[in-house]
């Protein structure tokens, strides 16, 4: 098996392999040919499949999202690139009023097989209109499957699954996990099978086992949580790290089981803090594991401010390894730490 560096390579390879088998797949969006949708998700495809199937669109998010709706209703499986998730404002009507609803509103007549690729996240100085993650907004709207791959293996397997799914699936690829040379890389190079494989949506992954505290996160935050867990281990604190992988459908069971085991939960999210993923996961966990919890569920997320530009400001709002570490320490407390390290 060969190694892949980053999610962009996994996503692009998955699309390539599925396009080779399924004539109905077309790629639409801004800069999807030469620039591979800028963040690499469609790199190399136009050379192989040509401009009739890999189509650069005018900069018109609402119109190409609407075209994806119409094309899907007419039998294609469009893969649409929303270059930065922040641009959803320009295309959201077609997504949340049509793409997400037409199957339901048509009484099941019209399938809506659309795969949306979008780049998320900050940490490299792109400020408030190019650094958000926003998967909470999409998860809130019934009708989208929400995928947040943290590894190249997941990126490939979930993309294959999306391309075989008759529903709208949005793949939120974090820029700092793409593995592209012009961005910092916080992921790991890892072995990924060359042959296509589909992963099941709604299965969380326990990335690290532990007994004192459960940290739940997604995307880039999984990697930062793992780094915090390593530091905590030196302090004698055993941390379980869970990667939710998909918000819709959500694997509540794995989260609840871990919460019952450790009795302490910290949810780490790069989305805005209020009315989002952290609150929803906390609700689901307390509903089933309340008696096992030793303290209220904690969270580290972006405080409710836009992502600022200047480096110290940006670092102050996007959850860092240090913030996760400190919050985890506060959760487990001193006496536990001493007891464990003894």
């Amino acid at each position, binding site marked *: 098996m060969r190694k892949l560096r980053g999610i962009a390579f996994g996503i692009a390879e998955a699309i390539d392999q599925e396009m080779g088998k399924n004539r109905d797949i077309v790629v639409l969006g801004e800069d999807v040919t030469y620039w591979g949708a800028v963040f690499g998700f469609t790199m190399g495809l136009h050379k192989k499949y040509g401009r009739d*199937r890999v189509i650069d669109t005018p900069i018109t998010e609402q*119109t190409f*999202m609407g075209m994806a709706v*119409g094309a899907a209703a007419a039998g*294609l499986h469009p893969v649409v690139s929303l270059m930065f998730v922040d641009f959803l404002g320009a295309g959201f009507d077609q997504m949340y009023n049509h793409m997400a609803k037409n199957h*339901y509103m*048509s009484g099941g*007549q019209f399938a809506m097989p659309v795969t949306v690729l979008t780049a998320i996240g900050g940490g490299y100085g792109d400020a408030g209109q190019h650094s958000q993650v926003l998967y909470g907004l999409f998860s809130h709207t019934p009708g989208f499957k929400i995928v947040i791959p943290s590894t190249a293996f997941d990126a490939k397997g979930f993309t294959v699954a999306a391309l075989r799914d008759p*529903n709208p699936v949005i793949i939120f690829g974090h820029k700092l996990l793409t593995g592209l040379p012009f961005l910092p890389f916080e992921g790991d190079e890892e072995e990924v099978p060359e042959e296509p494989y589909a992963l099941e949506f709604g299965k969380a992954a326990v990335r690290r086992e532990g007994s004192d505290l459960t940290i739940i996160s997604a995307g880039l935050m999984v990697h930062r949580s793992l780094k915090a867990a390593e530091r905590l281990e030196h302090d004698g604190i055993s941390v379980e790290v869970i990667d939710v992988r998909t918000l819709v459908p959500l694997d509540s069971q794995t989260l609840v089981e871990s919460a019952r085991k450790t009795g302490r939960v910290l949810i780490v999210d790069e989305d805005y803090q209020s009315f989002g993923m952290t609150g929803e996961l906390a609700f689901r966990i307390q509903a089933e594991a309340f008696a096992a919890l030793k303290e209220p569920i904690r969270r580290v997320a972006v405080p409710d401010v836009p992502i600022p530009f200047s480096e110290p400001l940006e670092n102050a709002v996007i959850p860092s390894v240090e913030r996760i570490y400190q919050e985890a320490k506060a959760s487990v407390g001193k006496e536990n730490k001493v007891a464990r390290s003894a």
Partner: protein
Amino acid sequence: MWRAEPNVEDLRYLATKAGLTADLCLTAYRQMSLIRFFEEAIAEKYYVGKQPDFNLAAGPIRGEMHLAVGQEATAVGVCLLLSDEDVVVSTHRPHHHAIAKGVDLNQLAAEIFGKVDGLCRGKGGHMHLFDKANNFSCSGIVGASYPQAAGAALAFKVSSKQLVAVAFSGEGAANHGTFGETLNAAALWQLPLIIVVEDNLYADSTPKWAAVGTSQQYQRALSYAVNALLVDGMDFIDVYRAAKAAVDRARHGYGPSLIEAVCYRYRGHFEGDLGEYRTQEELELWRRRDPITLLGERLKKLGWADEAALERARNEAKAEVEQAIAFAESSSLPDPNEAFAGVFR
């Protein structure tokens, strides 16, 4: 009324040249009558429970209601040229397009009543009608029809099918960003797309003079290098002639067209609209140009139908509508559990 009225011989020439026959015209007359009677029957049922106090939630038909009485010629003039496989994406005022496209009248009526036998099993309602069998859909969001029809047109092009997609809209929607965006994309990729702008002079209550910078919307299509035609939307023959040319072009790979049909809705933007924004005189003026009456008179002039044939067509249409309304009324309401099914496939 703003177009030169052809004499009988010229009319025969124009109609025949466009491929119209006595049979086709009589079919159109019957379809337009069907739409008229349907809309009037829905209006009657809609006000049950809503008088004297108007309450959107009351009566057998809940919610908003946008009827297309007066706009029958645009729907029939275009859809008569389409096959089941061709796609139509309509608007918040969709009944005339649905009927013209061949959507089952019983299922249409039942959906409007929120019944289980409706097109969407009661999940869509009057503004959100979907019919896979006839490739018909619509959206309650103004300006949403353009890109969706363009997407279907793109699918036809990618899969080399000789099919066309039609987006209907009002003239108000043509001020939306999706209008210009879609025209650009359609011209760029030479999509088999036909945009039909029904210019009924008012966007909700806002008259065109208060909302449109150009005198007509078709002018904007020309600047995107899209074939554009301005027609009398009260005149079935004029609409059909333009639509025939546009559909032929699109079907044979010659790209998109826009048809702007100047027409008039006799009823309010929605039922309950008091019409403060227009005069009774204006309404009367347009009624004199009624599309169904006009087509009937012309058929008689051309010797293509006599009054008895027209009456027969009207009676058939009326009976079909009565049957559909009865079907809808007798259909059951959906089981509440239906609400929880079908978010995903």
